[in-house]
């Protein structure tokens, strides 16, 4: 209405559009915008390129060019490159440990089942009580496949279990039990009842004050002492219990962080509507608290997955230990790089998948909420 009160001449469009992008389109534009925007960007880019130029050709030559893909150790030692022949020779032992070789389809199927259960749980549409049934059935079947003794499957004692199925089993079962336990501990630590609060706090602080190695030792050595003579529990089970007790304490602290971030008004509104304690926690507090702490939670999961390799100290052969054991074969001694790379890639794939999933979950859970 007013006469150019905003300083715009009649022909000039109002500044409703964003300023034009500085970068030109196309590859050159992208390079300009991302790698050579300022003089120090340029310097950094050049420095990184120089390091890559020094390192990459050697690595490629070692891993691919000069590599030996099959044959005997002698051939490897003659060539200068990577000895993938070692992996070709030992992969079954590294993956399955001392599990009877003619039965390797059983741990394979067990792992596929476990991963199927994990994949189904990853889909939010399946979240609900049905999932508990799926876990019980899936993991039960996986255990049956491993242990045998039924349906004509030859029994395989847990002392022979090893490699990836062991690592995966300890991690998945461990987290599946430790997570709800951790949530309960966190609720206990933030509870209004002093007894619960003191007990939960004491437990959490005790476990966190002790390294995992000693928890595993305690589980391995102490649990049998508490059992009546004649009753013995499996070494694998003892390790599993130790891992669960340990992980629960750490998960509890992560969950507590989330619980404390929820405003008091949420509990008050839920209480005022007549919801009881467990309904409030399950329907209002935990869904919000847990989705807040997905990143640290997944961090703990990943750490735990890798920490299972410590079970070697009580004599269980996890994935890392089978790789080490493979290296003790006198014929194949010395191919550390190949063994650890192989195992490292497997660990990486699992951890990376988990990390990607957590990113997806975070965005999908926060969709539409809170501006």
């Amino acid at each position: 209405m007013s006469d150019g009160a905003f300083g715009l001449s009649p022909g000039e469009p109002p500044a409703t559009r964003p300023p034009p992008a500085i970068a030109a389109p196309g590859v050159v534009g992208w390079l300009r915008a991302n790698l050579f925007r300022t003089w120090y960007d340029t310097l950094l880019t050049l420095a990184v390129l120089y390091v890559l130029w020094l390192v990459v050709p050697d690595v490629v030559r070692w891993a691919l060019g000069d590599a030996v893909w099959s044959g005997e150790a002698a051939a490897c030692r003659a060539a200068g490159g990577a000895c993938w022949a070692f992996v070709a020779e030992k992969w079954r032992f590294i993956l399955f440990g001392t599990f009877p070789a003619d039965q390797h389809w059983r741990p394979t199927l067990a792992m596929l089942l476990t991963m199927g259960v994990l994949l189904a749980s990853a889909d939010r549409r399946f979240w609900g009580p049905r999932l508990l049934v799926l876990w019980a059935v899936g993991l039960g079947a996986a255990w049956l496949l491993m242990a045998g003794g039924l349906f004509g499957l030859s029994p395989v004692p847990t002392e022979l279990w090893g490699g990836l199925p062991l690592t995966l089993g300890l991690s998945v079962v461990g987290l599946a039990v430790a997570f709800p336990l951790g949530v309960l501990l966190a609720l206990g630590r933030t509870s209004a009842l002093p007894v619960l609060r003191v007990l939960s706090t004491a437990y959490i602080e005790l476990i966190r004050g002790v390294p995992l190695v000693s928890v595993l030792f305690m589980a391995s050595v102490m649990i049998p002492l508490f059992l009546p003579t004649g009753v013995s529990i499996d070494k694998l089970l003892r390790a599993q219990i130790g891992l669960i007790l340990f992980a629960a304490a750490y998960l509890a602290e992560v969950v507590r962080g989330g619980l404390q971030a929820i405003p008091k008004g949420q509990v008050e509104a839920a209480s005022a509507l007549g919801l009881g304690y467990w309904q409030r926690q399950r329907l209002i507090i935990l869904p919000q608290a847990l989705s807040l702490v997905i990143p640290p939670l997944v961090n703990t999961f990943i750490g735990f997955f890798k920490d299972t390799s410590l079970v070697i100290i009580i004599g269980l052969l996890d994935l890392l230990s089978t790789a080490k054991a493979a290296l003790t074969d006198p014929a194949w001694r010395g191919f550390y790089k190949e063994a650890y790379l192989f195992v490292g890639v497997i660990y990486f794939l699992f951890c990376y998948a988990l990390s990607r999933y957590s990113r997806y979950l975070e965005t999908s859970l926060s969709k539409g909420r809170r501006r």
Partner: protein
Amino acid sequence: MTDLSGDEPIIELSGVNKWYGAFHVLRDVSLTVAKGERIVVCGPSGSGKSTLIRCINRLEEHQAGTIRVHGIPLDQDVRHIEAIRRDVGMVFQSFNLFPHLTVLENLTLAPVWVKKTPKAEAERLARQYLERVRIPEQADKYPGQLSGGQQQRVAIARALCMNPSIMLFDEPTSALDPEMVKEVLDVMVDLAQGGMTMLCVTHEMGFARRVADRMVFMDKGEIVEVAPPAELFANPKSERTRAFLGQVLGH
């Protein structure tokens, strides 16, 4: 007050005392509210208004005296607390909607989980109340996508979905931008005219004048004066009431 003595009391507070540590928040508070009565509580900041109405649904625990709702005493018996909470709706200054649930889910949560209402029935009811607070089109949004006034109306609808016979309001409009105050007050006036028993902490004196049967003036944890709004505004008996009203109305 005398004209209400024949009606059945729905809330009875007698000799209620509460302390936060050494701090005496509520001092010998006694008040009887009849069914269908609309009470506005006012008083300076820190006078214990919120504490008083939060004691009525046990968000705060009183330490001496008795509180009865529908004749049920508020004591350590959890069943009493549950029964009272089911029948007493509350609206907060900061809305306190559940941000991870849609508007519709916010509204159906308590009926489904507390009253075991079938989901379809709860949704029908929820939409009906959204209609009543005039935002039927927002059902599938999340609270974070609504304006403050809309959020507070959702909060009112959420409380109404439990079909309570008493509604408590704790400064429902004081967190709102001025232009949204009216839309919330309109809903509250509607509710008052529908016969709901209401206990409302507010500084909206226009609202008080329009709907309140009685006004309660509190100061330093005590009920200083109780009177119909016209009477309280025209000739407050206490000097403290006069000073407070002077501040609220006089600016």
